[in-house]
């Protein structure tokens, strides 16, 4: 039974890792924390389920790709209009502004798609695969496979191109980066678009597990942030490790301690980490020391 609990924790952890990765990328280029990340997830789940799947009757793959594309464009636009302007502001202002933007996005989802929760059944069915002694739902296997593929892809890009350095240079000093010939605006918009695509993936993968509601992303977004703190603020490998760890710890904690307080486990873990190991498991050198 515990094995089962751990596997479904791993699947949820992969979702947290996606969101945490988005936080890390945005932090590394814009030096802000996007508290609206969960609402990006919510919004993309609605776009995926209501617009592309239900209204347009598109097949799963096409709907998923189009959702990612729409979110990438929205991300780039929002970055240009709002988020890129926040880097120059105090952390306090940036935090409140992104929280406000999250409300805007959540309410837009409600205005456009209505308050009713949407049900979405997985195109992979609700079958179960026997792996060793464990019975693992197909949807969880899909989640893990997709997330592992995304992680590998972004690792290869960071490893074999200079994108990572360009991003960090942009975060550290935008003016100097511009003078050195870095197309700063495109870097910012691109990073934000990428983090929006990550949120879109998380939304698409979560849609069959949860009802699609305007609240579905809020807690996932916050826990993704907790995962990044646990892993190490701004650290890419840390975000992945923190996400997976948080997913498993949460499930095991809910199983062994209390399922009523499942959502509190992540925050309890956060407090412990902030007091005992505030730099996280795999600390980043340019982390936020504020």
């Amino acid at each position, binding site marked *: 039974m515990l094995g089962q609990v751990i596997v479904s924790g791993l699947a949820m952890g992969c979702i947290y890792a996606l969101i945490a990765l988005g936080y890390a990328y945005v932090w590394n280029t814009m030096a802000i924390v996007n508290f609206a990340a969960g609402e990006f997830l919510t919004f993309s789940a609605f776009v995926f389920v209501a617009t592309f799947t239900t209204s347009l009757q598109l097949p799963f793959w096409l709907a998923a790709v189009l959702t990612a594309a729409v979110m990438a464009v929205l991300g780039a636009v929002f970055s240009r209009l*709002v988020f890129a302007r926040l880097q120059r502001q105090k952390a306090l202002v940036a935090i409140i*502004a992104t929280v406000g*933007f999250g409300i805007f996005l959540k309410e*837009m989802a409600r205005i456009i798609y209505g308050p009713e929760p949407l049900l979405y059944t997985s195109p992979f069915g609700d079958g179960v695969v026997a792996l060793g002694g464990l019975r693992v739902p197909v949807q969880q296997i899909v989640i893990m496979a997709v997330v592992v593929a995304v992680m590998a892809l972004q690792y290869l890009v960071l490893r074999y191109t200079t994108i990572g350095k360009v991003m960090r240079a942009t975060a550290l000093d935008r003016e100097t980066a511009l003078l050195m010939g870095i197309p700063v605006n495109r870097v910012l918009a691109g990073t934000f678009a990428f983090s929006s695509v990550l949120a879109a993936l998380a939304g698409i993968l979560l849609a069959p597990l949860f009802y699609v509601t305007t609240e579905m992303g809020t807690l996932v977004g916050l826990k993704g942030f907790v995962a990044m703190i646990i892993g190490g603020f701004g650290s890419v490998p840390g975000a992945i490790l923190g996400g997976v760890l948080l997913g498993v710890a949460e499930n095991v904690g809910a199983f062994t301690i209390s399922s009523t307080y499942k959502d509190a486990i992540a925050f309890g873990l956060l*407090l412990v980490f*902030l*007091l005992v190991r505030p730099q996280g498991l795999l600390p980043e050198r340019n982390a936020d020391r504020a």
Partner: protein
Amino acid sequence: MTQTWMRPAAWIAVLAALALPIALDLNSYYLHVLNLAWIFAIAALGLQVATGITGQIVLGQAALVGFGAYATALFMMRLSLPWYLALVAAMLLTAAVGVLLGAVSTRIKGHYLAIVTLALNEIFRMVALNEEWLTGGPMGMRDIPTLSIPALGDTIDRQLYFPLLALCFAAYAVTVFFHRARTGRNMRAVRDDEIAAEAMGVDSRRVKTIAFVVCSAWAALAGGLYVLLVGFAAPANFTVFESIKMMLMVVLGGLGSIAGTFLGAVVITVLPEALRGLQTYYLAAFGIGVVAILLLAPRGLGVVGDWLLGAFLTGKREPVGEAPAAPLNLGAAAAAAASALRAHVPAPGAGEALLRVRGVSRSFGGVKALNEVAFDLQRGEILGLIGPNGSGKSTMINACSGTVGVEGSIQLGSDRIDNLAPWTIHARGVSRIFQNVRLWESMTVLENVMVAHRAPRDPAGSREARSRAAALEALASMGVAHLAHRRGGDLSFGQSRLVEMARAIVNKPRLLLLDEPAAGLRGGLILELSQILQHLRAQGMSILVVEHRIKLVMNMCDRVVVLNLGDKIADGRPAEVMDSPAVIEAYLGERIPPEPAAPLAREPAPA
């Protein structure tokens, strides 16, 4: 321009508008909405103190309101306390929670504090939802006895309208009073620049704790009044969303503006009711409104609110002389210093060390910024600390002021001061300026200097008045008294530098640490600065000064310590030190051995 009659007239208009709903006998639903607005205004005020004024972000104010609400209800229903005792007890209990939050905030800052307060709000909601034996679960607590004052009207909303408004005004009045006094100045200093505040004697832990206590107490008052008005408390009333709504009130009112908070709370509470037809859109509009206000009009409604408060907010402003014809008044100050010098005979190096630095080391990551540095500073001495860039000079200053911790020992007189809190070191008579000027930009020049002043705690006379007088005197001695009522952020770099000097000397410290005081001053002023330092020394201050300009160092220092890559490489009289081969090498690089073969090689000129 503001005419003198305009502000009182505006006040009369505001007070009349507030009395109007009762005078017009508005229906009880509208009165209810207004009553909620007064209650929210109190809760938002607490949030403004913690977030807007002290800079500690709290995204869980609704949980504190809820805590106060449940506590009031429980005290009344389980312990049968009368409502006023229950309310006060709930405020005290919630204030205790504020003390804990204050302790948390000294270790957890910025983004971490935001997520932690948000998490605590979520945990509060879960506990209220699940611990039915205490909180009544999802249905909450019902049938809590409400207040009734039959003399004031027939419905409860009519009865409580003026009492709630009066309590709200009282809370605002108390907050405004403290905002302009020492407590409020310290809070704003911590918000604008925490490191500078600590180095200038502000105990940031204490200030943050006070901020969180005020935040919690006002939240609990609001929560208790809510319960007394509506008669129930349920988890759904105190969600993260409510916290964010209160944050909207604070942002709309303008971060840091007390009167703006009231206006923000009224708008955010009343507008949705006034625009009920647009219910679907107003939350989205608020969300994007916050972003727009923060980016485009950060002062929000505070523009109106602060104008209304006027002199209540700033205190009376005494006239401070006209600006001198020259851009800075340093010339006059230097002349005064020179004449004072003729009277005093400075006595440098009386043979007694004021500052004794022994074996001080500090590394950042793999870089050793200081390596076993040792030197003495004699009483009444001006000691120069020089060295190439990255040699550890600023780290040494930071170590002496407590801004960074070090290994080794630093003694002031007979006491160890290494690794003490910066405010403790400041209280022992050590003051400093920073390499890149660090004024508190939103505060006036006068307030900047008053924060640093430590008035003795004797009962006679007002500490506030004495701080004011001392600050004006310090500003005058630097020739910048005419800037007293300007905002710190509006000054030129040279002016800020002089204000920072005034801030550093306002307590007449025993030891003054100056990190490149001449940076940003134009040529002529630099030599005048040297005279000012002589004058300060004549007043009994010993000075440790980091400086790059060799001419200035030769001119003003009695002795010089030279650092290179964290090591002390020379220590002695300026002229001797400048001739030391190690120093020449550190500054100019190694001597190139003469190469007769190269026809174009020239002997490097001796420095």
